[in-house]
């Protein structure tokens, strides 16, 4: 199974949301990383065939997904950003409703809904109305509905938003188990989630993939750009105002700064190993670095 994005483009009037994006996705977990407005959600909607591209196409094993219609949607599981629900439905009723939409027979739907609620730690709340759910619980129902039809292609837009650390760990383990022989694409702002489960990462900025590769490959791009600098407390503010500070740690009267910079920010700065978060800040930090696109 191969999902191919071929020069996929989406314009909203004069604004370019997605700009000639191309990629070939084989089974595995793919992470989409980018700032707000980078085009991640637009791209995901086009991958779900619910948004027409301005140009370019998405092919599944060589066949255009919009032409595949229901056959493609049969393979798809999708969790939209700002997942919508019916407040007066219970979680079980909601899953049964989505199951019916996915064409799952009634007797199987009930079993599957129970199984997924159990898996998401929501079995105790199966008969509770969704309006009484916390944000994290609703998000877990959202993930459950995406998994109802055992999709071959799973697209999750900000799946870990609203989840507490324990739930996030549960989710990461679930996706890692699930991803075998399936294509999982997820976008998140939480870099550690991407680091924990994705095989490949796409870094998206202004509608373009500016980088793509495995995490070790990507972090190479930030190598020699991450520095650690120890400064007196009274200088800390000046550094935060003038440089991209990835981390700040107090050690007695001094402050240890982790700075992202193309050049050595100070004679006293020492280079250190880059992480995905450093890479993210290198490209999306609010202080523009010289080589960032």
């Amino acid at each position: 199974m191969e999902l191919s994005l071929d020069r996929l483009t989406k314009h909203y009037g004069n604004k370019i949301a997605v700009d000639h994006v191309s990629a070939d996705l084989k089974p595995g977990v793919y992470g989409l990383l980018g700032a707000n407005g980078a085009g991640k959600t637009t791209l995901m909607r086009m991958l779900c065939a619910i948004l027409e591209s301005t140009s370019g196409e998405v092919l599944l094993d060589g066949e255009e997904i919009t032409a595949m219609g229901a056959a493609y949607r049969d393979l798809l599981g999708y969790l939209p950003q700002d997942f919508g629900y019916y407040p007066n439905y219970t979680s079980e009723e909601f899953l049964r409703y989505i199951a019916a939409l996915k064409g799952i027979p009634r007797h199987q739907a009930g079993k599957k809904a129970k199984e997924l609620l159990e898996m998401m730690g929501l079995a105790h709340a199966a008969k509770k109305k969704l309006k009484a759910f916390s944000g994290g619980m609703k998000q877990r129902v959202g993930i459950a509905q995406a998994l109802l039809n055992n999709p071959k292609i799973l697209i999750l837009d900000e799946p870990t938003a609203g989840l507490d650390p324990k739930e996030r760990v549960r989710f990461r383990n679930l996706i890692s188990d699930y991803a075998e022989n399936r294509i999982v694409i997820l976008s998140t702002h939480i870099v550690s989630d991407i680091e924990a489960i994705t095989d490949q990462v796409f870094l998206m900025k202004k509608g373009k993939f500016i980088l793509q590769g495995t995490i070790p490959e990507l972090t190479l791009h930030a190598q020699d750009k991450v520095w650690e600098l120890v400064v007196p407390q009274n200088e800390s503010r000046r550094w935060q105002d003038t440089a991209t500070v990835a981390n700040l740690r107090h050690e007695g009267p001094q402050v240890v700064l982790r700075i992202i910079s193309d050049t050595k920010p100070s004679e006293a700065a020492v280079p250190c190993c880059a992480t995905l978060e450093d890479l993210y800040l290198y490209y999306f930090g609010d202080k523009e670095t010289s080589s960032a696109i």
Partner: protein
Amino acid sequence: MELIRLEHKKLWCRNSTKISVLLCFIYVVLIGTVLSFQWFTYGSSNDHTSSFGNNFDGYSMIKDSQEYSRTFGGKLTDETLQQMVTDYQDMAVANLDREIQLIDRPIIDSWLEQLYPELKDTNTYNTMITYAVPDKLTGFYERRTQALEDFLEINDQTGAEREYLLQMEEKVEKPFSYEFREGWSNLLASMIAELGTVMALFLAIVLSPLFSGEWRDNTSPLLLTTRYGWDKIARAKIITGLLFTTELFLLLSTGILLSQSFYLGWSGWDMPIQMVKLIAVAPMNMLQAEIYEYAFTFLGALGYTCIILLISSAVKNNMFALIFSLMAVYLPPMIAQYLPFSLQKALDLLPLVGSPTDIFRTNTFCFFGRYIWSPYLLIAVPVLIGLLCTPFTVRRWSRKLKK
């Protein structure tokens, strides 16, 4: 089937649905029917200044009125008309306040005004029943025929159209059978006739968010990525809408029918509808008219449901869906008065825009020189309009997100 069941359940889960149905039931059945029978319309009156001053004795007043009407032998002739007027005048002299209210006074007055204009005393504000000389009330049916022909003449309904209407009229059996007709008149000209107008309001409130609400709830991206989220769900929503309309109609009509059975009973069902409007031409009795009015309301409501759903699928905002849905049924009557008569009649063909009381009128439509009595079209066209809307509704829904 499962999808329809769940969609239907989803609709009924909404508080707005439950509240709307409850309010609609209270307004139509409890206030519009039960209280009307027991209090506003049929309760005996002490002061005649306001319906709210009536006594809470509608049931006994109706039963007594029915019994009184039966004393006239079941047929309306010159003699029975004269007897009714005589009775009224005698009761008025004897100050029998309660008994006088048992007489079908409004319709007798309207007959006298329409058929015996030469007897009208222009020097008094009293109604004709109070002073008309009973012996002069003769030739009721001949005068009625003349009144009908004059009406058609004034209405410019001549030639083939006139012949068509008079042929219908010939089938009306005479003399008319007569029983207490006020109850039937109120039922046919008001209670059932206005049922569609009231239903339209609540149908719009409940059904207009059926598609557009998926955008407000932000569930549309979820639905549209499922196997059946494009077409089957749209069809399930349409069936759900039609089911809801049927349920609401059954609830309200059952309420009205039960009230009718309790208060009026079914006696007088075979009276001709001419007892409601004297110059009506249709050879129908009260029961047939009642069935027609229910059918008109039900089929119109189904057609209107399809229009609401088309609007709902075409807009993403619940408020716009509601406003446009209400406009579809309430705007045409507002603008009709500014349009030529032919266009007014055409607007009446829109679901729930026309009135089932056209069975009492002489309106016709002319197609290629052939005349069709308007009630036939008023009952058929709204359903056709509804059927025409459904494929567009499915298409609008599935195409909405892709833009």
